[in-house]
């Protein structure tokens, strides 16, 4: 029966993810971004909370809620601290050697490759550190990787589809959490900052932008929640596509709400926008999920 209630286990996990984000991630996110890593003691605390391999303990839909809360504190954290399925690239076809120009991982020793026909684990890699900072997700580290051999086959086409479901839900949940954080930051700021004699949130042009962001995030979030619960590839492709589009737009609009201040490192919003942009490129990005959604249109009920 139609029901949007959160169950107790869900609330518990959500709460511990939220607290970890607020207490451990958010206060240090600029430092972690600057160093390009999360310190070992933070990793240890994360593991202690059982958030590391959250998918192994619960359903995809509930894991998505945890990822979303964590990403609100630092969008790079879920990826760096314990992504589902480890370090992964998604390719259109498996032909080695190939180069991954940017991989959000400092020193990968192996790399899972998801291709339409199956999944392999490559360990014959050339890893080069990237000299200059990437657009986003810097705290996760970054490398250019050349895959010389596809490596051992660890899954067939059905497994590849299953992996893609997890990966897309993961990326979408992180984007959603980051965008929700940016939107709520912009709302708070706009209620405090005054211009022309009143809070800027009370100018209709900006007020409408801010409430539209909240509406669109809820719409995308509900679609993602339902897709994650269904674990159905087409539903997940649609949700990933909608979240990617929505999160990027909301991040940019939220930055705009702060005017010039939003452009500065003094506020987290410019980082949210960059991180979301980088998350949107993972696992084939929205173009791949949009293509999968297109393939499904004619069969859709």
């Amino acid at each position: 029966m139609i029901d949007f209630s959160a169950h107790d286990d869900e609330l518990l996990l959500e709460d511990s993810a939220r607290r970890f984000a607020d207490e451990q991630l958010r206060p240090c996110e600029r430092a972690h971004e600057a160093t390009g890593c999360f310190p070992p003691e933070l990793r240890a605390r994360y593991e202690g909370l059982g958030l590391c391999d959250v998918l192994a303990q619960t359903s995809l839909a509930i894991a998505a809620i945890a990822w979303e809360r964590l990403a609100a504190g630092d969008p790079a954290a879920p990826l760096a601290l314990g992504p589902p399925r480890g370090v992964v690239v998604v390719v259109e076809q498996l032909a080695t050697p190939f180069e991954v120009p940017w991989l959000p991982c400092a020193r990968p020793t192996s790399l899972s490759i998801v291709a339409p026909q199956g999944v392999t684990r490559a360990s014959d890699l050339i890893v080069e550190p990237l000299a200059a900072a990437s657009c986003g997700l810097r705290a996760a580290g970054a490398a250019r990787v050349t895959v010389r051999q596809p490596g051992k086959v660890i899954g067939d086409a059905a497994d590849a589809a299953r992996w893609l479901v997890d990966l897309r839900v993961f990326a979408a949940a992180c984007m959603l959490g980051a965008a929700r954080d940016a939107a709520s930051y912009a709302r708070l700021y706009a209620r405090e900052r005054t211009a022309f004699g009143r809070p800027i949130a009370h100018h209709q042009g900006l007020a409408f932008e801010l409430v539209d962001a909240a509406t669109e995030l809820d719409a995308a979030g509900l679609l993602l929640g339902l897709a994650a619960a269904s674990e159905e590839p087409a539903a997940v492709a649609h949700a990933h596509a909608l979240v990617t589009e929505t999160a990027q737009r909301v991040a940019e609009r939220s930055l705009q709400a702060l005017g010039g201040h939003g452009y500065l490192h003094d506020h987290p919003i410019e980082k949210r926008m960059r991180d979301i942009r980088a998350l949107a490129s993972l696992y084939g990005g929205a173009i791949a999920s949009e293509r999968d959604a297109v393939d499904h249109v004619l069969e859709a009920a």
Partner: protein
Amino acid sequence: MIDATLDAGLLNVRDLLRAFGQRYLRPAGLEADRSGEPLPVDHVLFREFAQLGFKFGMMDGKGDAPANGPRRGARTGVIAAEELAFWDQGACMSLPGPGLGGAPMALLATPEQKQRYLKAPFADASKPAWGAYALTEPGAGSDVAAIRSTARRDGDDWIVNGEKMFITNGARASWVVWFATVDPAQGRAGHRAFVIERGMPGYGATRVEKKMGLTASETAGLVCEDVRVPAANVLGNGGFKAAMATFDLTRPMVAAMAVGIGRCAWERARDAAREAFGGRPRATREVLLLDRLARARRRLDAARLLCWRAAWKIDLGEPNTVEASMAKIYAPRAALEACTIAIDVLGLAGIAHDGLVEKCLRDVKIFDIFEGTGEVQRIVLARRLLDYPAA
């Protein structure tokens, strides 16, 4: 975790309405759209609907709760609204019943008033009857507080004067919930709801509007000239608040109707696409069309979930103003997008009347306007989320 399954009860409602919609609503809606006139009060559709025994007077969630079971009326309402609108929203709005007037009745009426207005007029299934809701005036649409209808005491009675506009089923209604001010100096606090009955001297319809769409549905202008209204016809005390609370109950359903129209256009376009370019490699143009269809589909699906969430909160008995406004902001735009792309998929045939989708486009546009425009919804949300000041 979101559960979007429909239980057997909801599936029954949907299937029943699907059969009814296909057989009666769709042909009636197309017929009215061709003729340019609302369905006449003696249309066969209305007798058939009465025999179905499905009632809409359950938007408060109380109407159909099984003994000791959770309330489910609002969720039933959104499922029903989407399904009926899928077949024809104009014909659906013309169906007999208390209509939008049912919600303030449910909120404010005494048991005697409920018997008189919600039960008695609709008891005889062979005689279709309508109720209506009259808030909007020629000079006061979104700015509801600015209504100029007046009611002044005269002994135990009230004398009501004023003009209303855009009243669904207004000319054919047996009664209409009429919002008027008892003291313009009090602003919103002076608003009261009166039940004006057909036949009261001085009350009548001034015009039936010609519209872009929803042709099957009658949209009327009404007037009260020194209408004497007995005290027994006054609904509760909460005029403005009741008018607003009504919207929290109806907006999820209205948004769900938009989803239904969007789905109608979308499915027509999908079927056309299947026929035209299914099962073979696609040209670039076809891929672009399918991509736009896919985009429209996910927004429609997301819109439906916003509607369902807002309805679910009603069933829980929780405030749902934010959720209802979000649904009402998002669904009409998503549905309009679906209708627009559906026309593109059909090509020039999409502009022809029998393509159906151009009618969907004309029908769905009003959903971003009535029951609170998209702009009003944004103000409602801004008040909740941003402390946006009341006007």
